């Protein structure tokens, strides 16, 4: 089964489910070093995305990603709305015109998402943000593809790397986002955005149909 609009749509639905399931956990993480809304924010965004998904029959993968981007930008707010919104928009751009995605395109989409997040948010690796999960994920996906792996392997590698990156945010002192206001007190807590990024990539890695 190729990664076509139907698979991407199913993946978005799975993401929405996962965020719904973990929203209290994400909000709790955000309560420790932020303002207690990250889970609520993303949940609102993904629920809006479900409503706006195009009919996969007449859509390309990029259309689906663009619809998600629009929903996130117009419903999430906060820091994560524009950041994830930009990520999905850039991912869409990276696979523009494609009817189905191969492993390399999946890796490209992830890399484009990272570039978008960094352009909007100016965060570097180690700032205790989404970048700390997404950046190693991009590297791992690319390495897997370069080693001849398929999309499933690339996504699994990305998910593992993201999880590790998210764990590694715990001791960090935040330099971007709300957690930075806490200074030294931000250390000792896992970053909510890196955690949600990990959940999303893990969901893609488990998605039925991502075998290309």
């Amino acid at each position: 089964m190729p990664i076509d609009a139907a698979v991407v749509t199913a993946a978005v639905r799975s993401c929405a489910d996962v965020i719904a399931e973990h929203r209290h956990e994400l909000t709790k993480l955000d309560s420790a070093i932020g303002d207690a809304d990250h889970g609520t924010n993303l949940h609102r965004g993904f629920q809006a995305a479900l409503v706006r998904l195009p009919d996969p029959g007449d859509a390309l993968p990029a259309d689906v990603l663009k619809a998600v981007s629009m929903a996130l930008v117009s419903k999430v707010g906060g820091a994560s709305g524009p950041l994830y919104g930009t990520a999905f928009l850039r991912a869409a751009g990276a696979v523009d015109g494609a009817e189905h995605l191969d492993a390399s395109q999946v890796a490209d989409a992830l890399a484009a998402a990272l570039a978008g997040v960094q352009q909007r948010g100016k965060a570097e690796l180690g700032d205790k943000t989404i970048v700390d999960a997404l950046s190693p994920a991009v590297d791992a996906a690319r390495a897997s593809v370069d080693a001849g792996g398929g999309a499933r392997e690339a996504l699994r590698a990305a998910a593992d790397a993201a999880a590790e990156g998210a764990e590694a945010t715990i001791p960090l002192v935040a330099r971007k986002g709300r957690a930075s206001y806490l200074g030294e007190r931000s250390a000792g807590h896992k970053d909510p955005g890196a955690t949600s990024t990990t959940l999303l990539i893990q969901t893609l890695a488990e998605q039925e149909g991502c075998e290309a």
Partner: protein
Amino acid sequence: MKKLINDPEQVVNESIEGFAAAHRDQVTAHFDPTWVVRNDAPVPGKVGIVSGGGSGHEPLHAGFIGPGMLDAACPGEVFTSPVPDQMQPATKAVDGGAGVLHIVKNYTGDVANFEMAAELAEAEGTRVRSVVIDDDVAVQDSSFTAGRRGVGGTVLAEKILGAAADKGYDLDQCADLLERVNNQVRSMGMALTPCTVPQAGEPTFELEEHEMEIGIGIHGEPGRERMPLESADAITQRLVNAVVEDLPFRRGDEVLLFVNGMGATPLMELYIVYRAAERLLADHGITVVRNLVGDYITSLEMAGASVTLLKMDDELTQLWDAPVKTPGLRWGM
């Protein structure tokens, strides 16, 4: 969680509905996307002043809509910055031909969402200038970080810019003035208790009976430091000294002293803080020429206070004194 609400998901909508009903002679609320605008917008030839941010800071921002202050405001979810879909129609609605000024508090989300909104508005032909307020001295300023938060200074900035727009300042003059205000204003806050975001349902942090948080923002977040509770005079000294040393304010300076309550602190206590602050400033040789005491930029039901100092001059004093007529701040009309 004990709150006078119906449904945690509906608090913003329902409170804006109530607000718009109570002030229907002055403002109109739009929903989904949510924005609030003065009834006589756009005022032809006047620069439109738009602000917005997460809800839970009331009366900021919607409470400051009206002649002499804001033309429109975009309330986000509680403590969550609004989205470009809200700023876009608001910006368009208040453009009286002279362009629109966005007053943005420095939070990653607020900045990014307002940025996207400004791009959209410009694309549609509305000239927009944005200035970011970052007056919180509790946060160390650095180009490697998200920088300082926008807090109490925002209230003063909105009042002063509203007056300037009324007086006929053009868009660039408004933006320059706003930058100048931001360069001359500093704030610092503290909390005695946390608050509870309705959708989260639990307090944002826990504090012992004899602890306080120093260096908090306005989103129920913990501060820079947790320390033993002190007397009002000692706490005020911490806040005032941090603010004075930062700019720094100097002997001979004339200032506006703004003592702000975070939500649950009785006015009685705010005046005890005001008393201490005015005395400390006198010791520094700084004269309070204007003041504001009350709950103007809050953090839901948090108990605590913040101190803001704005260095005044003739221009700012005149703009501060100009008439203003909003639900949250009113004089001269």
